């Protein structure tokens, strides 16, 4: 092919390919393909879609009163579990990271053992262990056991994120703070952690999203979270696809909101420094 033609065709196609509309069109094409696949799949299964029956499990109106369905109640439980677990896992993570970098040999050893133990065993096993073995001994309820299992698990991963963030603060910052006579606590509180926050925010957000998704596992110890409620509804109604899709969509909304909030925070931090 002569190069002249090539050049002309580029001139014609370049603006089309690189306009924002081409992205929208590509996205719609992918979406259409997925829908078609799904349609064909369920058609061959002979699945009978009954989307109209789903709404009552989310919210319904009875005698002028709004009643939240089991899915919303499950969502509230999931939110409570995730909220507590988030706070505790970040606390465990930060403490473990600080322990691992401390001068104390025992502290480093304890942190290391915790990390390896948690990261190299399945979350489900940890959850069962806490619920069936530890909980009866310590006399804690299933909600606490679930939160504890999730916090310990995600905390181990969070600690590695915190550690990486702390290590990435320039050495000169430590030295400057030391030379001013700052105590170790003040050094971390005012100099190191504020700067590390910028580095850790994106990976920490991924970790929080993972936590929300992993929280579905607490349904195995009969906590009525979003996933558990979904399972119950399905066993009563056989609306398998509709309910699972709805549950997935609710998780998606939750994680997207979280990511967006993290983006806003990251943007603010960037504009400050």
């Amino acid at each position, binding site marked *: 092919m002569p190069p002249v033609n090539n050049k002309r065709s580029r001139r014609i196609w370049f603006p089309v390919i690189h306009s924002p509309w081409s992205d929208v069109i590509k996205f719609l094409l992918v979406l259409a393909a997925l829908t078609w696949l799904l349609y064909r799949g369920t058609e061959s299964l002979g699945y009978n879609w009954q989307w109209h029956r789903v709404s009552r499990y989310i919210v319904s109106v009875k005698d002028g009163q709004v009643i939240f369905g089991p899915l919303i109640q499950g969502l509230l439980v999931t939110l409570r579990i995730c909220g507590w677990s988030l706070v505790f896992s970040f606390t465990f993570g930060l403490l473990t990271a600080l322990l691992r970098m401390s001068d104390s040999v025992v502290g480093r050893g304890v942190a290391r053992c915790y990390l390896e133990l948690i990261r190299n065993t399945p979350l489900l096993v940890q959850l069962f262990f806490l619920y069936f073995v530890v909980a009866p001994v310590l006399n804690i309820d299933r909600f606490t056991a679930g939160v504890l299992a999730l916090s310990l698990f995600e905390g181990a991963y969070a600690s590695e994120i915190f550690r990486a963030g702390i290590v990435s603060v*320039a050495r*000169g*910052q430590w*030295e*400057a*703070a*030391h*030379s*001013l*006579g*700052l*105590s170790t606590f*003040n050094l971390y509180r*005012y*100099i190191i952690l*504020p*700067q590390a926050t910028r580095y850790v925010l994106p990976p920490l957000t991924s970790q929080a999203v993972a936590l929300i998704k992993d929280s579905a596992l607490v349904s195995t110890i009969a906590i009525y979270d979003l996933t558990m409620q979904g399972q119950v509804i399905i066993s009563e109604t056989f609306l398998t696809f509709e309910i699972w899709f709805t549950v997935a969509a609710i998780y998606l909304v939750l994680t997207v909101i979280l990511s967006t909030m993290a983006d806003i925070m990251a943007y603010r931090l960037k504009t*400050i*420094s």
Partner: protein
Amino acid sequence: MQGKELGDYIIEVERIRKTFPNGIQALYDFSARIRRSEVVVIIGPSGAGKSTFLRCLNGLEDFDSGTITIDGIRLDDNKENRLEIRKEVGMVFQLFNLFPHMTVLENVNLAQMLVRKKNHDEATKVTMSLLEKVGIPDKAQSYPSQLSGGQQQRVAIARALAMVPKVMLFDEATSALDPEMIGEVLDVMKTLAQEGMTMVVVTHEMGFAREVGDRVIFMDEGRTVEEGSVEQIFSNPQKERTKQFIGQIL
């Protein structure tokens, strides 16, 4: 600056040794005694141990043997002592090391409030007068990234001075600066010297050394090769190694 009145010995360093984990010996039985209000300039080729010595003086670097005493306090494994010494010894770094997430005002206020336990108003008063002194009172609300290198280094000097240190250490404070900004930082350092601050200065600025230095220590391979008055070292060095080095830099 010759003939200025010097006080008693404020820094006493006895035969300190320091070997880095990679086997490089940075200081070999290095000793020095520095008087109150004295300005000591340390020169020498890179790798001579100049910076390591400075960093040992405020406990940023551990040493293997020997003793360092500053204003009567021994610098040893005792954490309290080390913190006490750091309060009294200010340090200015080659790369400024300002806190990038804080304004100039917050940078200078921080240690006054956390370590000297002043309230915000008292600290701010001191900070503003120090910024006046180093010539950038209008930059109090700026962030370090908005300042030139020379301005940043002057903030760093103000930050160290805010602790009212008894000794100031300068670790190649002008080496990272553009030529036209070196002067403004040296001017601040000269003012400090004239006010009677005890200063230990590692520098390649021979003009500065001549103008304000009371004494010059020429170091090589972790030891003092020769020391004496500025005149003596620059114009009439005795040792062959000193002659060679002075010949290269002048």
